[in-house]
């Protein structure tokens, strides 16, 4: 994200300025909790992006792993080794490096899955709201049915079936894409309903009629005129959804249906450490667990803050 | 001592550490069976005044000064328990929008009986009897059936009649009606107003009628208060205020009535709009909109001047009175 801001400001120097002058930035500075969450989030994202540079070891490289180093505790405990700051896991991998890479995977899956949800939801919501009639009721009925299934349930079933039919070998190669697809496809209805509600509210306003009279195409009216009005609810939903997607990914990985142990996400790290807490090696589970909770919590706190500040009309039943 | 005496009532709202005065210096009297109208544009503080009498100002607002004496008892100093015994009993209230006032998940009967039970020991069958009798009083057809109906099954006019019936349950001495007809169809407005007036007259109930409609005030009330930006700017007998308004704002309100213009002519409007509580102008709060603004109006808040039966807070009126007095003294 840091890299992002730099490149975009280089292209468009006024953007950073505009953000700094905005209402959003001012209220962020005033709200201590939100500001702290923002800083932590930026820190996590940058560390995740820079993991290959920052991590002392490469957990994907089997040659750097020595099984003799397994289950070493963090440095502040007895029997630790200085080069493994947070200790090692059951396979002898440096926990700090694994966590950095794991966070990278978790964030990647979370953000991409939400982008997919958002894309699907916006397309469905825009068409349902704009065209109305049969298309609308058909799409919304599908959304209702989709909502009545729990995301986790759908994800577990789909992933379990894929794993059973592809075999664990091939599956582990495709895991990232599968997780993004499954979590992305399971949660679009919320976006669709919100976008549809905004479209219905905007549809009959004069500027839309004006655009139509001027001969703009449907897609141009929807994308250029109606969509910008739905941005703030979308932003609020997306924040919460990223947090949820990260939790879903972790849960699936914990069940052995997500990322394989060789390319761990935070969830599979926690899972791989679970059996060792009974023998006292708490850190293999606890430290990635703590990172996961803090990551999800700052995103949730940012979401709460955004909802208070933007106060959008979210879809409500 | 009057039945109701409101003295220097002040209500403040605390917003982010800043205290905003929604109501200042409100004083008036009301006798038993007397009817008072409070008029003004929306945002003038009429509803706040109504709620303040019943000590129903919700957080972050509260009564910060003054007294509300009902039969000599200061309502603003009562404990919540004691205040509860007054509400719905000696003083009841009618709200603006009947669609929103009744709880959608309870039957009419439940909402009537609970009010009776809150104020006196009464058996259910007796409560039902009284409720039905009150429903008859407000001319509701087949009242027994209505008792088991839910609000969404009734029309707006019917709901407002039921709300009036609820207000009458404990035979109150005072009813506060906050824009009781605004949310209704025009055809039903007059019916409901006539019913309310008739009920107050025949039961000797005092009425505080809050409205922005001077026409209604002239038909129903004996006294009128005109409010602007949280303050009283003119008060007195209704007929004097309607026929011989002194304050430029009151004159503006009267000129804005459709009856004051010929068909096809443009309605007279008061230019500008009511200031928000955050930026009330110094001096007379009406000065930016006033056609007769004097130098002093922007600097000093006007005191009340007697003019006939009315008190008026206006520098221009005071100046004219002083000139008259000076003139007669000179003679």
């Amino acid at each position, binding site marked *: 994200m840091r890299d992002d801001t730099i490149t975009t400001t280089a292209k468009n120097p006024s953007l950073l300025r505009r953000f700094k002058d905005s209402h959003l930035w001012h209220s962020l500075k005033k709200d201590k909790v939100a500001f702290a969450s923002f800083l932590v989030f930026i820190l996590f994202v940058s560390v995740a992006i820079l993991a290959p540079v920052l991590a002392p070891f490469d957990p994907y490289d089997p040659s750097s792993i020595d099984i003799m180093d397994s289950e070493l505790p963090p440095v502040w405990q007895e029997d630790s080794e200085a080069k493994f700051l947070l200790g090692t896991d059951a396979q002898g991998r440096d926990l700090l490096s694994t966590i950095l890479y794991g966070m990278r995977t978790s964030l990647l899956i979370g953000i991409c899955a939400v982008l997919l949800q958002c894309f699907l939801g916006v397309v469905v919501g825009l068409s349902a709201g704009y065209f109305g009639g049969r298309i609308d009721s058909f799409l919304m009925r599908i959304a209702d*049915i989709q*909502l*009545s*299934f*729990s*995301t*986790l*349930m759908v994800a*577990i079933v789909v992933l*379990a*079936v894929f794993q*059973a*039919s592809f075999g664990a070998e091939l599956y582990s190669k495709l895991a990232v894409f599968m997780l993004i697809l499954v979590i992305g496809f399971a949660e679009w209805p919320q976006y669709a309903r919100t976008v549809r509600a905004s479209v219905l509210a905007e549809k009959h306003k004069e500027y839309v009629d004006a655009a139509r009279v001027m001969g703009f195409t449907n897609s141009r009216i929807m994308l250029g005129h109606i969509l910008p009005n739905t941005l703030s609810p979308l932003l609020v939903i997306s924040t919460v959804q990223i*947090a949820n997607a990260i*939790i879903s990914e*972790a*849960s699936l990985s*914990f*069940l052995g249906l997500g990322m394989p142990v060789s390319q761990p996400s935070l969830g599979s790290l*926690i899972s791989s450490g*679970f059996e060792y*807490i*009974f023998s006292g090696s*708490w850190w293999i589970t606890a430290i990635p*667990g703590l990172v*996961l*909770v803090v990551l*999800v*919590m700052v995103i*949730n*706190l940012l979401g709460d803050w955004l909802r208070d500040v933007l106060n959008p009309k979210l879809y*409500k*039943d | 001592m009057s039945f109701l005496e409101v003295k220097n009532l002040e209500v403040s709202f605390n917003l982010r550490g800043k205290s905003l005065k929604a109501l200042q210096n409100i004083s008036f009297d009301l006798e038993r069976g007397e009817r008072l109208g409070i008029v003004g544009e929306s945002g003038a503080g009429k509803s706040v005044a109504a709620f303040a009498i*019943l000590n*129903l100002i919700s957080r972050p607002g509260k009564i910060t000064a003054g007294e509300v004496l009902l039969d000599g008892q200061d309502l603003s100093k009562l404990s919540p328990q004691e205040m*509860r015994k*007054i*509400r*719905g009993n000696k003083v*009841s*209230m009618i*709200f*603006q*929008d009947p669609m*929103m*006032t*009744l*709880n*959608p*998940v*309870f*039957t009419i009967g439940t909402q009537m009986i*609970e*009010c009776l039970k*809150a*104020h006196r020991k009464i058996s259910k069958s007796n409560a039902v009897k009284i409720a039905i009798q009150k429903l008859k009083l407000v001319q509701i057809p087949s009242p027994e059936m209505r008792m088991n109906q*839910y609000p*969404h099954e009734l029309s707006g006019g019917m709901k407002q009649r039921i*709300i009036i019936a*609820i207000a009458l349950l404990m035979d109150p001495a005072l009813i506060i009606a906050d824009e009781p007809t605004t949310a209704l169809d025009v055809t039903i407005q007059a019916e409901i107003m006539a019913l309310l007036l008739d009920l107050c007259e025949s039961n000797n109930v005092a009425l505080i009628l809050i409205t922005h409609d001077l026409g209604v005030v002239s038909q129903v009330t004996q006294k009128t208060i005109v409010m602007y930006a949280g303050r009283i700017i003119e008060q007195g007998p209704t007929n004097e205020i309607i026929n011989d308004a002194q304050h430029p704002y009151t004159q503006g309100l009267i000129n804005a009535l459709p009856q004051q213009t010929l068909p096809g002519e443009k309605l007279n409007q008061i230019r500008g709009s009511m200031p928000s509580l955050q930026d009330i102008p110094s001096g007379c709060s009406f000065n930016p909109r006033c056609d007769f603004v004097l130098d002093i109006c922007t600097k000093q808040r006007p005191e009340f001047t007697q003019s006939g039966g009315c008190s008026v807070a206006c520098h221009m009126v005071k100046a004219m009175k002083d000139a008259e007095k000076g003139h007669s003294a000179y003679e």
Partner: protein
Amino acid sequence: MIAFLINRLFQAAIVMFVISLLSFSIQDNLGDPLRELIGQSVSEADRMELREELGLNDSFLTQYFRFAGKAIQGDLGTSYFFKEPALEVILKKLPATLELVFGATVLIIVISIPVGVYSAINPSSLFSKVAMGISIIGISVPVFLTAIISIYIFSVELGWLPSFGRGVTEHVFGTWETGFFNVDGLLHLLLPCLSLASIMLPLFIRLIRAEMMEVLQSEYIKFAWAKGLSPRRIWFMHALKNTMLPVITVGGVQIGTMVAYTILTETVFQWPGMGFLFLEAVNRVDTPLIVAYLIVVGAIFVITNTIVDLIYGLVNPTVKLVGEK
């Protein structure tokens, strides 16, 4: 009532149809039933004959209808692993899962309503601030992590509570095995139920608080104050009933979600329920068992949603269940 039921049944039928179609395609594509039945040592010609005999060469639709017909009679095939009818295997594990869900639901109701209501009435009190703080942490901790943490604290470190299994159970109503009627069973239930409840609890506290605060601002609540009603009646009758309407709707969806989360808690606590069995079946590619699980869970979804809709209709007078007019 009739219109409502028809609408409901129609929706339920669609959902069950989708689930059965899904289940059938899983069964169709996953694993080779012949190999499971007869092993590898049969000649190619015999295989073809058997395929024909078993109807495996029929069209997809014919096969689906045969599957659906059997499914309606309760025949979902035989589990490869247990060599017993799949539906029976699943139903045997159903009580354990339902007790988990029931226990968690009770915990959620008992805790979230008082906490949500109190913090809506006193939004600036210390208690509500602490409750809100804890619930934002609660939302951010995944179920399996809550489960692991509670095992670590209460079983490994303190040794107060058992960390796995159902403990002692008793038979009631003939076949139903329950852990509710003895201390050991209840102790075993405590941690799994708490973990399962932990993800929903903050959600419901926040929801109830938000809805209640909105209701307390409404005109009918102001009118209730003006009628001189007691605060207790206003809060717990007038406001609470209106608050619960949207909460019931959300609750219906969340019960379904909770069934999914039992897979997680049952895995961590090695709870011998359907979810645990399902994951084992996935690892063993025991297709009939996977299909049976999907159908049973689908039925649970449909039934709970219908019940929740009925309750909603009974609580909310603006929904007409009984066609009177």
